[in-house]
């Protein structure tokens, strides 16, 4: 009885931690893609699907600036990249090579916001984000 008093809170804590970790990883790249599709439809002008080809072109272009997405993530995003400025290693971006990618909506939104601003000098729209994700999901 006395031992239970200590074991129950500990077990409860462990269960809560496990549940939190499980929830954080619940989303999949396909979930993000669905989200971008809904946003693209809401943005109007007739959604006609996502294109891996368009996504690849966007990913590899410098858009008149200094960097492309590939500057840090490499032109073959199944391999590790390197931050163009600091040199810090970056884990592979393609979901096939890194199961953690595109599993958390807040993280996905944070990096699209930052990186589109750095590479294109503006926010990306849902069509563009979906195209890039389509490209990344097509890589094996």
């Amino acid at each position, binding site marked *: 009885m006395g031992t239970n*008093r200590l074991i129950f*809170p500990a077990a409860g804590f462990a269960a809560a931690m496990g549940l939190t970790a499980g929830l954080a990883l619940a989303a999949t790249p396909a979930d993000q893609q669905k989200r971008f599709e809904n946003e693209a439809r809401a943005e109007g002008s007739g959604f006609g699907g996502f294109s891996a080809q368009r996504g690849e072109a966007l990913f590899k272009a410098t858009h008149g600036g200094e960097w492309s997405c590939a500057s840090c993530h490499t032109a073959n995003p199944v391999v590790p990249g390197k931050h163009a*400025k600091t040199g810090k290693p970056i884990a592979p971006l393609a979901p096939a090579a890194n199961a953690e990618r595109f599993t958390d909506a807040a993280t996905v939104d944070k990096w699209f*916001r930052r990186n589109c601003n750095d590479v294109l000098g503006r926010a990306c729209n849902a069509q563009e984000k979906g195209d890039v994700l389509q490209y990344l999901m097509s890589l094996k």
Partner: protein
Amino acid sequence: MDTKRRWTLDIAAWVIGLLASMVLIAHEAMASGRLATPPNAQWKTECGSCHIAYPPRLLPAQAWHRMMSQLDKHFGTDASLDPAAAAEIGAYLERYAGSSRRAQPAAGGLRITETAWFIHEHGEIPPATWKHAAVRSAANCAACHTAAEQGDFRKRNLRIPK
């Protein structure tokens, strides 16, 4: 009465467990070197995504405050955060910020490498070392301070690439 006592014991068990783990975690970080601070997961993750999470003591509170207010223009890149994360990290940085005047970057800048102590501490490093392929930037602490990620900048862990 008995139920009430049991509740008290349960809560006590929780509190003691939590405190013990906090002390353990803090002790581990503090023991590793002079610049380590009690860990903050948000700071470590967010500030450590593109470079090492620079120890709060390397800049004064007012410099951290200014840096956190312009994260969308962070040394040429957009490092913006959601307001909740920015508030937590800002408070952490300011709480453990450096207090020495020598931690103040020259001319109101925000670069750690422009503080008096950094320049003094690195005065003997030849120009060739800074240009070494494994170093490239003075902001790349971990190139020589092999335990920088852990907040440990002691000489015993210093390995200058040849």
